């Protein structure tokens, strides 16, 4: 989800009998619910896939600060401003936990950053959409963080120890994010006609992109099957999307907002809602780099990295100088 389209390197899932002894022992550990730790043997595909997935997830946390950071200086009250600031700071923290988890697989944080900045690695499509009004802060917290939680809760049980532990920390903090968004929506939905209109407008714009966060249907994907066998993906994209819709529709009803989907209908038989698929052409177009804000996001990240270079280098130089002085004194 924050890692929407992770392509695995394998050609399909091997049965235990087709595996070499070392790989078989590894798969049996995973089947038994064991956690894999950094120094344990692992297939190269598992390592590569995890680096892509955790890296994409980390990048999403970092780039995800931008649409919300956009509103910090214009929050309507001091309290809302302090809350938004804390939330955006959390996202930076989540990015750091995830980069550390990825680093245990033998890639450095600076390498990952460079791959994001030159476009070799992706981040979630959702952060390529603009945040036009204050109500978008409500919609992002409620829907985007809500969708993220849907995916991250099962990932706490993922087979790779450092990733699972990072997820535990993230999930603990994430529910504050969703609630603060819903709180903004509640206030606006109970407000003046103009405020209600803003809340509905934000909901209309973020509903489709939120459904896209789970990625396209992957029921028949070999990549997904391999990731699920390795327990680095716990549920299918459609399964999580359905769960998200079923959870969100009653919340929208409570707010008095209309879900922007004419085909939305309760289906008694499946015990869930029927709903329209989001615009997948738009999704693939955004992934190709044509999102409404893609250029701005990448420019902002590149600028932050370039402008911060002298600070990073200066602090390293200072640390080296102090170390040298300490050695000289001894």
């Amino acid at each position, binding site marked *: 989800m924050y890692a929407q389209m992770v392509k695995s390197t394998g050609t399909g899932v091997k049965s235990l009998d087709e595996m070499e002894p070392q790989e078989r022992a590894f798969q049996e550990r995973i089947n038994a619910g064991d956690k894999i730790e950094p120094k344990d043997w692992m297939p190269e595909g598992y390592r590569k896939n995890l680096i892509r997935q955790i890296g994409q997830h980390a990048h999403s946390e970092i780039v995800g600060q931008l649409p919300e950071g956009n509103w910090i200086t214009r929050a309507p009250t001091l309290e809302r401003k302090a809350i938004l600031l804390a939330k955006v700071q959390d996202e930076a*923290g989540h990015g750091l*936990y995830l980069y*550390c988890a990825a*680093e245990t697989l033998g890639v450095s*944080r*600076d390498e990952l950053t460079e791959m994001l900045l030159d476009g070799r690695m992706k981040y979630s499509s959702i952060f390529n959409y603009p945040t036009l009004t204050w109500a978008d802060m409500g919609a992002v917290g409620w829907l985007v963080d809500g969708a993220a939680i849907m995916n991250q809760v099962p990932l706490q049980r993922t087979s790779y120890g450092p990733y699972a532990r990072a997820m535990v920390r993230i999930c603990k903090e994430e529910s504050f994010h969703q609630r603060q968004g819903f709180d903004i929506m509640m206030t606006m939905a109970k407000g003046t006609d103009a405020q209600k209109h803003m809340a509905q407008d934000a909901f209309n714009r973020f509903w489709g992109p939120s459904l896209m966060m789970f990625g396209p249907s992957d029921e028949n994907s070999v990549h997904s099957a391999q990731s699920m066998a390795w327990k680095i993906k716990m549920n299918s994209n459609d399964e999580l999307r359905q769960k998200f819709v079923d959870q969100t529709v009653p919340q929208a009803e409570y707010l008095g907002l209309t879900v922007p989907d004419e085909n939305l209908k309760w289906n008694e038989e499946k015990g869930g809602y029927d709903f329209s698929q989001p615009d997948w052409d738009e999704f693939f177009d955004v992934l190709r780099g044509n999102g409404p804000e893609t250029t701005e996001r990448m420019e902002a990240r590149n600028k932050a990295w370039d402008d911060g270079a002298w600070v990073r280098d200066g602090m390293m130089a200072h640390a080296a100088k102090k*170390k040298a002085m300490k050695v000289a004194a001894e």
Partner: protein
Amino acid sequence: MSTNDWPLWEIFIRGAHGLSHRHVGSLHAPDAEMAIKNARDVYTRRKEGVSIWAIESSAIAASSPEDKGSLYDPADDKVYRHPTFFDIPDEVGAM
């Protein structure tokens, strides 16, 4: 682009007075002082601790997964090291 990677530090936090420090994760910082400052921001935003330790990851020695057998198996046949190994009659009372 900078190739001047900051070293990796392992962070340990004492959750409350009287508890031991526990490993919570790692982070990058140019030196020990900054490692502690960064650890404050990354790992204690919600009052998770009262004390922070930081140590460079490269300074940690660790046992390897292959040693698991030789290190821990010898304890398997020494169940008498646990108090539950011994049956104390009820009439003796708590011991």
